[in-house]
């Protein structure tokens, strides 16, 4: 039970013992009186003491409880409270599933405590009400291990049990919970799940849930699931992330392009102070933002001979400090090589598209299929195949290149029925000169066809496509025609991917040769393919432990470095750990979906957001409850008092 006006409770609470004090003072103020009928007094005292004293105590208790109820009623108690859970708890073992993910660092309105600290406080308060001897077991998202807690006070240690930059996989934690219960718990158990209901943490579509809930219902003992949800959302939050840190040459200079992504949950014109710390030097820049999203490329000149570096981008701290910074690193400058296998007259166009600007480190050349074995060991990022048929050996070599992280882009025509790279099965060539095929749907968020850094969409819908050769197996469709056919498909193989564009660059196929779509698409594929040669490893903070990490940038106090965002050195490579971007999403799982997940178990939920939102029904219900209790106590008190007065009145 929680209170909206706890101050009133503390003010009125001392008055609860007032009836007792008045009673005691009254008893102390006795008056002497000479009395004749002493025998009756003695016998009356002997026989009346038991019942009369009990009645006196009942009357006093009724008065005290009436004042207590008044205090509680005036303090506006809220029902469904987390504390209320413990009243019905009789389990021997309580397993606390603690969400320590990045989003749990969101601060409350006062800015004093984050969600995790509030969760721990509520868990401790509730645990204090449980009988002694209750065993507490902690399974937290950071360690993903079951630990018996001797003392819940240890949860207050921010170094051991603070917010991490990792995510929380609830299904995995509950699998650990199930394993623990099955092995170690014989009696009734309570599972107290805590978290902010972030949808990505629960991922209810995961098939693991079905097996998990089935496992729990098959257990012999009774398991009660209780969810403590802190679904409160920060009102004005801005998050920053670095989508890519790309080193390139521009106008004969080494530059670092940081593609920044700023996202807000509100719309207001404001200027954000952006701070970029690169190799120990901090530069500030003001960014004007008006919408909810801002993609911005921050370009930094690098000195000649620079062999790589690292840094952090940050914005001023808000109520969700966990997403206000993002780490990045970049490696040594390398040429981004591309090869074009083409027999058509448009081959030079493709070479030009792969190395569009002089002075950059992009390099493209026309190669023949027979050169593949010698070329693929020389740091190539992208191989473009246009109007060419490869034999089995060449295809095998190219597939090996893809699996190591390379990218392959294939344009038709391909011989009908010939499977390319064990992935693409081309269909018939279709032509429609009078009514061109229109691309109307594509993934503009990410990938090869994503919007530009300025937020502008690629003009795919303006392409004039007169011929196409659709794949029979579409793979992952990145863009599609009006009739549903795939324009650009992606076939992931190993670390790399094969892309198939169903229309060619030749004039009889389409106007792709104009470059508005072709250039950015090829450049993105080159960048993706170059990642395999990078000495920088970008990863998310996660439970998996890394060996021998040396902190270069970030929290040097962190005990678990794998859970703390930062730049680390590992085996002469730079390891950049950041929060998973899904941690910045605001979508929450609904209570209904949550209940569905635990449909076969006893599940109850306390949502602090609902409780603190001033739900009138809940409050009224409790107020009337305490008002009724006051009436009951006063009624009993009145009855007992009047009953006592009756014999005298008869006289």
């Amino acid at each position, binding site marked *: 039970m929680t209170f909206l006006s706890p101050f009133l409770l503390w003010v009125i609470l001392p008055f609860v013992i007032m009836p007792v004090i008045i009673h005691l003072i009254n008893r102390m103020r006795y*008056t002497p009186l000479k009395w*004749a*009928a002493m025998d*009756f*007094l003695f016998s009356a005292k002997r*026989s*009346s003491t038991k019942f009369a004293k009990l009645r006196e105590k009942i009357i006093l208790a009724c008065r005290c409880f009436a004042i207590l109820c008044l205090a509680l009623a005036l303090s506006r108690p809220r029902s469904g409270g987390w504390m209320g859970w413990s009243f019905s708890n009789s389990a021997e073992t309580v397993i606390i599933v603690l969400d320590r993910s990045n989003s749990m660092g969101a601060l409350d309105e006062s800015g004093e405590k984050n969600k995790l600290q509030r969760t721990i406080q509520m868990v401790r308060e509730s645990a204090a009400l449980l009988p002694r001897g209750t065993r507490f077991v902690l399974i937290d998202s950071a360690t993903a291990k079951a630990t018996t807690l001797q003392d819940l006070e240890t949860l207050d240690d921010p170094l051991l049990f603070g917010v991490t930059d990792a995510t929380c996989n609830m299904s995995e934690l509950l699998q650990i919970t199930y394993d623990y219960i099955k092995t170690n718990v014989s009696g009734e158990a309570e599972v107290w799940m805590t978290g902010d209901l972030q949808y990505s943490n629960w991922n209810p579509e995961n098939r693991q849930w079905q097996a998990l809930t089935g496992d729990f219902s098959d257990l012999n003992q009774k398991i009660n699931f209780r969810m403590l949800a802190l679904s409160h959302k920060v009102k004005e939050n801005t998050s920053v992330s670095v989508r890519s840190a790309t080193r390139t040459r521009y106008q004969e200079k080494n530059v670092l392009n940081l593609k920044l992504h700023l996202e807000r949950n509100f719309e207001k014109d404001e200027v954000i102070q952006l701070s970029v710390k690169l190799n120990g030097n901090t530069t500030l820049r003001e960014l004007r933002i008006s919408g909810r999203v801002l993609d911005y490329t921050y370009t930094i000149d690098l000195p000649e001979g620079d062999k790589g570096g690292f840094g952090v981008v940050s914005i001023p701290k808000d109520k969700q400090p966990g997403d206000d910074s993002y780490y990045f690193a970049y490696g040594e400058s390398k040429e981004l090589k591309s090869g074009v296998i083409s027999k058509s007259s448009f081959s030079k166009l493709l070479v030009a598209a792969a190395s569009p600007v002089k002075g950059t480190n992009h390099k493209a050349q026309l190669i023949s299929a027979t050169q593949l074995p010698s070329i693929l060991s020389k740091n190539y990022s992208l191989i473009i195949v246009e109007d060419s048929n490869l034999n089995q050996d060449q295809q095998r070599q190219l597939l090996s290149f893809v699996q190591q992280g390379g990218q392959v882009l294939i344009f038709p025509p391909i011989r009908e029925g010939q499977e390319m790279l064990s992935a693409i099965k081309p269909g018939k060539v279709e032509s429609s000169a009078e009514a061109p095929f229109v691309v109307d749907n594509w993934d503009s968020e990410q990938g090869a066809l994503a919007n530009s850094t300025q937020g502008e969409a690629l003009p795919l819908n303006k392409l004039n496509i007169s011929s196409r050769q659709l794949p029979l197996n579409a793979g992952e469709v990145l863009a599609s025609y009006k009739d549903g056919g795939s324009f650009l498909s992606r076939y992931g193989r190993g670390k790399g991917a094969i892309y198939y564009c169903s229309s060619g660059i030749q004039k009889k196929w389409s106007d792709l040769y104009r470059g508005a779509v072709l250039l950015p698409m090829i450049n993105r594929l080159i960048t993706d393919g170059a990642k395999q040669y990078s000495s920088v490893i970008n990863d998310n903070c996660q439970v998996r432990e890394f060996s021998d990490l040396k902190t270069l940038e970030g929290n040097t106090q962190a005990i678990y470095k794998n859970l703390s965002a930062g730049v680390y050195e590992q085996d002469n490579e730079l390891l950049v750990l950041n929060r998973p971007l899904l941690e910045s999403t605001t979508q929450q799982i609904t209570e209904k979906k949550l209940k569905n997940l635990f449909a076969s178990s006893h599940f109850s939920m306390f949502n602090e957001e609902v409780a603190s939102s001033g739900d009138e029904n809940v409050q009224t219900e409790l107020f009337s409850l305490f008002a009724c209790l006051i009436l009951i106590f006063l009624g009993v008190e009145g009855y007992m008092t009047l009953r006592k007065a009756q014999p005298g009145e008869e006289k």
Partner: protein
Amino acid sequence: MKELKKRDFIDPQLLAKLGRLTVEARGFMEGGFAGRHKSPHRGSSVEFAQYRKYVQGDDIRNIDWRVFARTERHYVKEFEADTSLRSYMVLDCSGSMAFEGKDGNKFNFARTMVATLANILVQQGDAVGLYAFNDKVIQELPPRTSPKHLYAINETLSKLKPSGPTNLIKTLHNLAAKIRRRAMVIIFSDCFTNVEKLIDCFSHLHFKKHDVAVFHIVDEAELKFEMTRPVRFMDMEGSGSLIADPAIIRDEYLQHINDYLKEIKTECFKHKVDYRFCVPGEGAEGVLSDFLLERIKGIHG
């Protein structure tokens, strides 16, 4: 003035109101003189009344044989059989009688009733004695008929002060053993003692053919027990005390005292004791007039 103050328990107005009434005995009395009360020894003494012709059914023992010898006719000689009344006023002078209610204390109330009844009895030519006691006999005045004796009684009453413990049981048993002839015994007490033993005393007195009357004096405060705050009750007949919250023990106290009053009244009725319940606040006139009138009418309490 001092003398008058000492005797403020005598109420002239009460005497004036009750002066025309008489104290009637409920049974035969054995007085030393002729009086207005029936004697058990009819025809055996005192004054000759008349001769009457013998009629069939008369006891032949009452035939005057001397007259028969002279006249050869049967005559029966008749005598007056009334005798005087000897009464004992038994007054409880224990500490409990000093209980001070809002209408005065019980002892003064008892003294008023004793003085009034003594006056009436002397006025009608009966003998009155006084027997004052607490745990022992304090004063004993044998029954006499003279007005001078009435003065002595009043004088004694004025000097008595209630104090000490009581021993009503022993006193009444001693009195029953002491009084040889039939008499009227009127007891003035709060009777705070064991009811069973008290009734034994009454049985003893009744066995000795005495006419027993009890004026049971209880103060209104003792009956209602209306204190609201905790009280330290100090025993008036001893040194004990008790701190109690009347609110807690009231019910039980009232239950006990009501049971006690009911029991004493019932037992007195069973043992033909003229029981009179008196509350000082209600005044002596009502109780005494009821007592006297009911005896005159032959309605025995």
